């Protein structure tokens, strides 16, 4: 038994030494957090160019949900992230007393209501269920689309976006003549929810919708109008890093004409480069 224990212990120390060795490389590593769509392909596209240009090592770190990349950024475990729009970042800063900043405006994400059951909003039956995002800023975005289409009337009163709560979604709806059931759920499940018997519309990013096979125009029943680009996605960083050279270089390659062309050819009309 002693032999086994000695073996295990030496194996552990060996592993930790090799682990440490791999950490202490001479190149500085810049960690950028993102999600699999659409951030990952874009960052992957610029990874080599950035490394060649700056001599830094770029590490793309993938997160599965919206709640964690800002936490990692605030803790200094990643140096930047690309997955959110400004209202989402503001909400996070507000709720967590952090001071994360937008380093660059990156692109507009088409956002709209998709359906597998109707092709026109006027066909929406009484009491139909509509799934929307369940985080404050995106929930507001969804409700505003429904309001703009005249399906419901919303009034947030004095509640700030950061304080909007998906559990009390009905308290923001002041008029609902069709008795629609508005149901906030996790963003990455909205497209899948359209297979449920009672869900008529899901409001979600076009990237998700297209991946889920909702790309045909007959599935799109309403679309967000965002003339001021307030919901454009941003590259976020810590405020004190805004002037750092690694960040300037990152913004430069991410907003280059070449990257814009890549985004357009990869995502078509769902993601449109926009840099303010």
């Amino acid at each position: 038994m002693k032999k086994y224990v000695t073996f295990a212990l030496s194996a552990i120390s060996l592993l930790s030494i090799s682990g440490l060795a791999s950490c202490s490389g001479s190149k500085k590593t810049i960690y950028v957090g993102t999600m699999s769509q659409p951030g990952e392909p874009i960052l992957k596209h610029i990874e080599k160019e950035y490394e060649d240009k700056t001599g830094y090592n770029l590490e793309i770190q993938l997160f599965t949900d919206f709640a964690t990349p800002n936490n990692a950024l605030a803790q200094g475990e990643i140096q930047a992230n690309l997955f959110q729009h400004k209202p989402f970042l503001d909400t996070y800063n507000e709720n967590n007393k952090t001071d994360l900043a937008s380093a660059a405006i990156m692109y507009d994400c088409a956002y709209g209501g998709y359906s597998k059951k109707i092709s026109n909003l006027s066909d929406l039956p009484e009491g139909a269920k509509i799934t929307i995002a369940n985080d404050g800023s995106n929930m507001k975005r969804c409700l505003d689309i429904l309001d703009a289409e005249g399906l419901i009337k919303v009034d947030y009163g004095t509640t700030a976006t950061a304080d909007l709560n998906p559990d009390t979604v009905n308290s923001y709806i002041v008029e609902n003549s069709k008795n629609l059931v508005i149901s906030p759920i996790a963003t990455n499940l909205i497209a899948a929810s359209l297979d449920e018997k009672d869900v008529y519309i899901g409001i979600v990013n076009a990237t998700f919708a297209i991946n889920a096979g909702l790309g045909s125009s007959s599935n799109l029943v309403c679309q967000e109008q965002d003339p001021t680009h307030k919901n454009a996605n941003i590259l976020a960083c810590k405020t004190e890093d805004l002037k750092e050279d690694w960040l300037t270089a990152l913004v430069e390659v991410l907003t280059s004409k070449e990257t814009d062309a890549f985004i357009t050819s990869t995502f078509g009309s769902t993601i449109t480069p926009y840099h303010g």
Partner: protein
Amino acid sequence: MSLKTYITEYLGKYLLTTLEMVGITLLIGAVIGTILGSLLYITRKSKKKWVQVLYKVLDFIVGLIRSFPFYILIFVLLPFTRLLGLRAMSNEGFIVPLTIAAIPFIGKIIEGSLIEVNEGVVEAATSLGLSPWQIITRVVLREALPSIVSGITLSLITLIGYSAMSGAVGADSLGSFAYNFGMISYDTAAMLYAVGTIVILVVLVQTIGNFIYKLVK
């Protein structure tokens, strides 16, 4: 995603991080888990009052950690991981909650294996004048070895399952790949490739486990 893209661009990286994450966890977990399991085994039988209290305390802590839903444990342990000087939201950082979850799990399995050992063998060893330490290391652990091997195999497979939750804190594993590139990207093929890889991995682990079991039996 095409199978070729998966194999050339992703398979190596995600397989390696999964193996590394689960492997290191198993090594540390098996060592500390064996010590913990032996301690539970020794203390539960003792007639001394303070040892009984020690058993109750140990058993409570083990139960406490085991009842934590793993997804919650990951987030609860973030500050602890940072205290250790690791990036909590990273591949190496994820090893910490995985190990903390593995230790009581393996400890309980080892304790169970030790209890199964025939009392007669222990009594014989005691009458030969062996010390409690000698009884544990030379007799009980050795007797229980086949059962421990199948317990460790079970633990390893459970850990591979747990590793799928690594994506929550930005760590990479085959499971998080299946979720990121398969589930939320609505790419069924990518999901099947990753899940297929996990299935092969689990079958392989089970086969090797069974082989070692036969060897030690």
